[in-house]
């Protein structure tokens, strides 16, 4: 702390920049609705519960002066955070559940890789190391400890196209196995975020290893964010992500509000 | 098997016929009507409540009371108490039970009263809870009440014996004629056969003038020894014979006859009279088809011939076959259980010479018939009495 050059004055300056709009706060969160698709596994497996809400009272005989609801959902419903313990590869890691992760890990910069054009043409688009290197050639090397967010514009699709389920599984874009291993080992990313239902590609069951995003991210104690939106409003670099999950005991993940801070001074 | 001889009713009389004028609707309870009848009897016989040591009551609307509750209500302390919930057979049955009690010395002065009130909604309520079988197996079927049940009996009777609506109409028209001369009748408008035929259908083949009108009212008489009646200066009649028989012919698929047939020979034998000797007949006329059945089953004609019988006779009090001389329930009104007393009380007036404008000349012997309680698909109770001028 003694060596810190960041003072409370800096923090207050930041706060007033947020208040004035010089630092814009962009909401990367989908609204929790009952209709929003959740991950579908083969029916013999356990299934994630969709979002459901039951009114407790609404200024009526059940509670004359107040309105409130009970809701149910899984840890992995809507815009949500994946903790390392979510995957078998991360099960033995320290600070791997949402309640034990150090709070500072919930604030980190983001690199946004825009592959929306490719995805518009090919729902099976698979991110490769070359794609990332190409991005780095234009925007610089991904720094250690940064989120990599994959902009596919998938969040803008209607739900049928968004889930895009066929009789051979979902057809949605995502990372290949090689690039995930590389992002972890060569770039030491903070985590990986997507607009699709999961961090993995729709056909990732057939990758080697299966579900490579989950496999490598969580195996390395890193985090996932999925069902994000508004990634098209972020700059390729420079945004800071605030993503604090609910403090669920031994929680494997959590729905959350994901916010991006973008400094307007970066524009033009 | 030898038939045990029945005792006669010598020395026992029915006295003091009383009718409390009917009202279409009443705001009073049945108790009020019973009280008025008791007061009328007391006035005639100069009795105080303590002088009445027997009480027989018939009423559908006296609930939740029964006869015992009424003793306290009216300050009676009887040593004979009877409740006769037999509808149209109530009068005959009350008479024969009371007569035997007096004859045996169990009571000296029995007041027999039938009364019902009629509130605006009481008829509907009575129908829907009339009996368990009515509740379970009749009322849920169109809720036509007795009109529908007797329509089926009437239809089957017409099909079986060739009776026509005109034949029923003769009974109704003659009774209306009688009613015009009876001061207490509710129906005071003359009725022609054409009007009868043109009336609206209620439940085919039953039309408007085949139906009685529910109303409130009371009928009553006293039963005592002849000696007592003379001492009190009361008008009275002798009792020659009575019968009752219930749920007869239970295997008939649909009713076309009643229990009178079973005991007919004993009935006339006991009285020592023949049908020809009868000067006036009071049948229970909730529907004209039932009057026809009684004319047949009481031996005035053969089974199935009542239609031609009514065509061949003048049924008015002036006619050759005086029938329901006050107008019957069809024209006087049906005051619930009092309808089961109406014919008996009218017959008593006739034999006592107190029938006023309706008086049948030289009336010596009257036959009064009762029929009642359509529990399911047919009337169950039947009874009859032959009474004579004193």
């Amino acid at each position, binding site marked *: 702390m003694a060596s810190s050059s960041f003072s409370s004055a800096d923090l207050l300056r930041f706060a007033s920049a947020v208040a004035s709009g010089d630092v814009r706060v962009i909401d990367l969160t989908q609204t929790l609705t*009952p*209709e929003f*698709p959740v991950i*579908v596994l083969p029916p013999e497996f*356990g*299934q994630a*519960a*969709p979002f*459901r*809400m*039951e*009114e407790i009272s609404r200024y009526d005989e059940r509670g004359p002066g107040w309105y409130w609801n009970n809701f149910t959902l899984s840890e992995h419903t809507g815009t949500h955070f994946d903790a390392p313990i979510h995957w078998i590869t991360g099960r033995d890691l320290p600070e791997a559940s949402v309640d034990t992760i150090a709070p500072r890990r919930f604030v980190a910069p983001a690199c946004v890789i825009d592959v929306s054009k490719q995805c518009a043409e090919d729902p099976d688009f698979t991110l490769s190391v070359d794609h990332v290197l190409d991005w780095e050639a234009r925007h610089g090397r991904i720094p250690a400890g940064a989120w990599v967010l994959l902009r596919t514009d998938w969040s803008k699709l209607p*739900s*049928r*196209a*968004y*889930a895009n*389920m*066929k*009789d051979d599984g979902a057809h949605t874009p995502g990372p290949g196995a090689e690039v995930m291993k590389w992002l972890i080992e060569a770039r030491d990313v903070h985590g990986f975020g997507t607009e699709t239902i999961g961090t993995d590609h729709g056909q990732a069951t057939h990758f080697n290893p299966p579900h490579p995003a989950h496999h490598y991210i969580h195996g390395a104690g890193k985090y996932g964010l999925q069902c994000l939106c508004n990634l098209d409003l972020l700059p390729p670099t420079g945004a800071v992500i605030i993503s604090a999950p609910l403090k669920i005991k031994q929680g494997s993940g959590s729905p959350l509000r994901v916010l991006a801070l973008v400094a307007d001074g970066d524009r033009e | 098997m030898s038939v045990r001889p029945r005792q006669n009713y010598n020395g026992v009389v029915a006295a003091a016929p009383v009718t409390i004028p009917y009202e279409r609707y009443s705001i009073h309870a049945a108790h009020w009507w019973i009280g008025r009848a008791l007061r009328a009897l007391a006035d005639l016989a100069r009795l105080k409540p303590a002088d009445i040591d027997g009480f027989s009551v018939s009423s559908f609307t006296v609930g939740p009371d029964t006869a015992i509750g009424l003793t306290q209500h009216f300050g009676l302390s009887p040593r004979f108490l009877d409740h006769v919930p037999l509808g149209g057979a109530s009068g005959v049955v009350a008479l024969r039970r009371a007569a035997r009690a007096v004859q045996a010395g169990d009571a000296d002065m029995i007041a027999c009263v039938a009364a019902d009130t009629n509130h605006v909604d009481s*008829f*509907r309520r009575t*129908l*829907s*809870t009339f009996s*368990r*079988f009515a*509740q*379970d*197996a*009749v*009322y*849920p*079927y*169109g*809720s*036509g*009440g007795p*009109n*529908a*049940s007797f*329509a*089926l*009996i009437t*239809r*089957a009777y017409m*099909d079986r014996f060739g009776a026509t609506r005109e034949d029923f109409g003769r009974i109704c028209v003659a009774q209306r004629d009688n009613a015009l001369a009876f001061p207490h009748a509710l129906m005071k408008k003359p009725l022609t056969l054409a009007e009868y035929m043109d009336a*609206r*259908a*209620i*439940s*085919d*083949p*039953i039309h408007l003038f085949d139906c009685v009108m529910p109303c409130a009212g009371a009928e009553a008489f006293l039963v005592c020894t002849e000696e007592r009646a003379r001492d009190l200066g009361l008008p009275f009649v002798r009792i020659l014979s009575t019968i009752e028989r219930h749920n007869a012919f*239970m295997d008939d*698929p*649909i009713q076309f006859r009643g229990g009178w047939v079973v005991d007919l020979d004993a009935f006339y034998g006991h009285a020592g009279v023949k049908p020809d000797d009868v000067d006036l007949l009071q049948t229970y006329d909730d529907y004209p088809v039932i009057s026809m059945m009684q004319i047949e089953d009481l031996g005035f004609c053969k089974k199935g011939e009542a239609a031609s019988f009514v065509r061949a006779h003048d049924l008015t009090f002036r006619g050759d076959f005086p029938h329901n001389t006050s107008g019957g329930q069809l024209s006087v009104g049906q005051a619930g259980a009092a309808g089961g007393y109406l014919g008996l009380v009218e017959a008593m007036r006739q034999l006592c010479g107190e029938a006023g404008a309706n008086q049948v000349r030289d009336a010596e012997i009257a036959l009064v018939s009762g029929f009642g309680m359509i529990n*399911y*698909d047919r009337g169950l109770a039947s009874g009859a009495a032959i009474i004579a001028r004193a």
Partner: protein
Amino acid sequence: MTEPLVKPKRKDPLKRTRLPLSPQGARSRTALGLVAAAAEGRFALQVCDQCAKIVYPPRDACPACFAPAPPFRDVPPEGALLATTTIRTSTDTYYRERMPWRVGTIRLDCGPSIVAHIHGDVSDGDRVRMSLHLDRSGQAVAFALPLTETPAMADDPQLREMTCDPKFRRALVTDGRTAVGQAAAKALSDAGASIVFVGLADEWKPFPGDAALRAIPNVEIVPLDVTNSESVGDLAADIGGRVDIIVNTAEHVRPGGLMARRGLVVAREEMEIRYFGLMRLAQSFGPILRMRGADGVNSATAIVNFLFVHALANLPEFGAYSATEAACLSATHSLRSELRPGGVKCINIFHGPLETEWFQTVPPPKVAPSALGKAAVDALRRGLEDVFVGDIAQDIRARAAANPKALEREL
């Protein structure tokens, strides 16, 4: 001959919707024995077990030998119509607005005389076939029908009061994704339903039979997820006033007993889809159905439930599922009572294992989904309340009635 029904015109928005009334529903306890037969479409009367006398109206002792409580048994329904009457006035509010109404006396070949409702195609002297129906009060009544089917027989206005015929009515099939849902939609369409709304949850999830479902005449796909209160409420707000029949086809068959299940996730899904699903439908659609019970030719008339017959006796192989179904069965009894003031029926169609994926490992006999669809329509047409489809369902029903404890051990 019965005039065939004409398709009702659209409702006059200036006319008040008449409130439903009921015929008198009070019955003696003994007479309720008829309800059990009517609910299943059987014709049963009391038959003395000591002297074989056939008894009607229901009595507490045999009138031929005084044997107590003659039991109800199926008896031959044929008889002769002795007399009829057309009632034109009634003191009863229900019948007053349905006058004229025909009743008659029937002499049954097996003995008793019965006063009954009379079909328009029979007249005095005819031979008739008796049936027991549940009237709008939910109680059993006898009905005299023609011996053989007549044209437009089901359209007889008195008979239609007793039944829930889908003809010209609008039905909602709650889940078109299931094989049973698709079969029910087809059967209702074939039966002349003027609209068959078919609910689909998660339209983004493809399913087999989608195209065929959409091709069924008069089918309209609507968004409906019975696990989502908002979805059920929204649909009721949209089409509730135009739904006369609900056929609940939402299902969630999963194997396993209580211990075999790891945790409650699947059990909750079962309860959400089956028990709470039914409750949501009841809450959102029930009050509208009940209010529209006398709304003309296409009045609201029934909710149909499909129930696993092991609601009656638990099948441990599907132990948790059987328990959910038992909860649903109990709920339907509450629903029945709640809908009764509207004259709306709650029809339960019990079935054993189906020819569907989740009963893959269960040996035959199994029931084809199409058989359930047809059973639903048949139950609606006859106004039944309890239907047991297929050999297994019949068998379990009989064994549960005979000795429930023995059945528990046998399963």
